[in-house]
């Protein structure tokens, strides 16, 4: 009777009479949905050796995999250079099948206040780990706590880690991952071995992208790929996401042209930048105001405009050093304010005025 009731309920819930499959969140990725997995996840390096460029970190981790001890780690570097991928791959190699039990991954989307550090992290750290796997193979006798995006942790929470980190060295290793090492408090950085992840070489990214193109049957010539790599500035994830976006936008089998790449990456066409400079040169305030209003309606990102202007101005021989210094300073200030939430219109107007002033110096 009891059993029929349960089956009834299961039927009512799913509308199907087969066994109820417990579905656990999004972490499980059934293979039949493989096409739904973003390529970034699909082509994450599987082993530490697959990680490109980051030699120091790779050497240390490889030694560890072959039996040496692992220090506490601190990975820092710009986005998309393989920080998270490296440690995940290492954990998988170290622990094999049981790696899910041996790592605790916390990132900015989890609650990471001081309370969590005190309770969750400490309890996890207290558990001892055995030196063998269930199947009898040896594995390192410790667990790894990965604190991803550690630069967004509060200082209080970081301080709470200090002593925990030292006390639990017997059973636990910490791996902190962040973009800016300066946001991690000194006592923590001094307890970790630091590894800087460099922006990736363009040829490396190109190689990877060509591989993905071949695997995924994407129609894209070398020239377009080169353009894509250039716009991504050493960020592998961005490059792969862009490639997938382009491929999705164009539909299967269609050729990807450079225009699509530019549109997807949000690069501002040069003609707008040229017009901006020309307007500033003319010293006409009314024109400048009109132009900026027009530019805003085209919805190009002001931050992108700043980046491209900067690149353009550094190599421009129209300006002398003094003028460049003046503009450069303004670019910095404006960029900071924009990130902080200033209005694009007013900030660009300010920049335009500074440019006009620089022109009038000549």
């Amino acid at each position, binding site marked *: 009777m009891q059993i029929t009731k349960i089956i009834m309920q299961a039927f009512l819930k799913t*509308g199907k009479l087969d066994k109820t499959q417990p579905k656990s969140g999004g972490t499980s990725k059934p293979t039949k949905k493989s096409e739904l997995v973003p390529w970034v996840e699909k082509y994450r390096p599987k082993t530490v050796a697959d990680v490109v460029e980051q030699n120091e970190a790779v050497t240390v981790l490889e030694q560890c995999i072959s039996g040496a001890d692992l220090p506490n780690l601190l990975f820092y570097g710009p986005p998309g250079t393989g920080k998270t991928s490296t440690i995940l791959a290492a954990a998988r190699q170290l622990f094999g099948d049981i790696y899910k039990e041996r790592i605790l991954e916390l990132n900015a989307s989890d609650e990471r206040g001081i309370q969590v550090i005190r309770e969750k992290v400490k309890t996890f750290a207290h558990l001892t780990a055995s030196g063998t796997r269930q199947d009898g193979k040896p594995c390192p006798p410790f667990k790894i706590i990965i604190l991803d995006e550690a630069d967004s942790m509060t200082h209080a929470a970081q301080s709470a880690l200090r002593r925990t980190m030292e006390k639990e060295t017997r059973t636990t290793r910490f791996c902190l991952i962040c973009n800016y090492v300066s946001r991690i408090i000194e006592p923590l950085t001094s307890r970790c071995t630091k590894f800087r992840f460099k922006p990736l070489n363009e040829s490396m990214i190109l190689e990877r992208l060509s591989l993905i193109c071949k695997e995924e049957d994407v129609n894209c010539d070398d020239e377009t790929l080169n353009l894509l790599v250039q716009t991504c500035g050493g960020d592998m994830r961005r490059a792969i996401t862009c490639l997938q976006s382009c491929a999705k936008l164009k539909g299967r089998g269609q050729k990807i042209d450079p225009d699509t790449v530019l549109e997807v990456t*949000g690069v501002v066409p040069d003609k707008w930048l040229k017009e901006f400079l020309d307007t500033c040169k003319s010293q006409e305030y009314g024109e400048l*105001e009109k132009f900026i209003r027009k530019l805003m309606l085209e*919805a190009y*990102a002001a931050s992108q405009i700043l980046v491209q202007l900067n690149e353009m101005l550094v190599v421009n021989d129209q300006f002398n050093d003094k003028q460049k210094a003046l503009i450069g300073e303004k670019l910095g200030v404006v960029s900071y304010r924009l990130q*902080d939430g200033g209005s694009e219109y*007013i900030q660009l107007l300010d920049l335009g*005025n500074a440019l006009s002033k620089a022109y009038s110096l000549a």
Partner: protein
Amino acid sequence: MSVLWADKYRPKELSALDYHKEQAANLKDLTKEGDFPHLLVYGPLGAGKKTRIMCLLRELYGPGVERLKMETMSFTTPSNKKLEITTVSSIYHIEVNPSDVGIYDRVVIMDLIKHVAQTQQLNVNAQREFKVIVLTDVDDLTKEAQHALRRTMEKYISNCRIILCATTISRVIPAIRSRCLCIRVPAPTEDTIVTILQNVCKKEDVNLPLAFAKKIVDVSNRNLRRALLICEACKVEQYPFTENQQVPEPDWQIFIRKTAEQMLQLPNIKSLAKVRQNFYELLTNGIPSEIIFKTLLEELLKKCDRGMKTKVVEEAAIYEHRMSQGNKAIFHLEAFAVKFMYLYKNMLEQMVEVY
């Protein structure tokens, strides 16, 4: 009958969109395979971002997405504060504006996305495997909330897709931008708006002279929704339209202009007291502080010479930035007003000295 024209004639399908047709075709291709990456749709006000999102959803799920219901969800912050937020949802998607709850938006993001992402669609065969979460005004999210989105977006991609909607992506952190397919929606051109206005009027059986349509477009600042609203308002005011009919300006715009005039006429402490009252009035009437600042600046600049303009804009950039940082807009508006008066008075005195 009480439906506004802007809503009544909102296109419902991607193929019915009036402009950016190439983009619409691309979006259609995107949905063809039944799957798409996270999207970040950005563009100025009234450019049709929301319209495109709804069209996309309809393309995916069919007319079911238009049966909307309002729901209030409640959350508890780690400090045990109860929050409530209104969501609009259909059975396929849920739309929420997390910045409604101010600095607690991170909690909403974390809870809501995990909640939606962890419940799977019941009938996998008949429906898509994923739900869609539409987050509006992403540029107003705090940095913490945006960081919270990062890994969540990757982790739950098999169960949900997130569509982000923003006016500018300067304030969206690069980490999120690199995880989304960014779709830029520029404002429609003036000619396009004129054509759309005329089409709508034809359907409504209203005679719209071309010259008057152009006048409306001038005022609307390439904002299609605003153009349609103004057109409808004008019709209520006076119909049939005449060539030289006045297009009514919004009250607040006139009010700010008057405030600016006050500041220019008497740059002293006494008028400052009045200006402060005006600012309060505007703020209590719910005019966003950024708009007050921008309009005020534009009005003031009209009366300045070239050198002065540079200075004023420089100061404005500083004060506007501070305003977005702090949470009492009135301080910064007033500080800017004082600074301007000071600069303006100096300029006037110098002019007197020259003569």
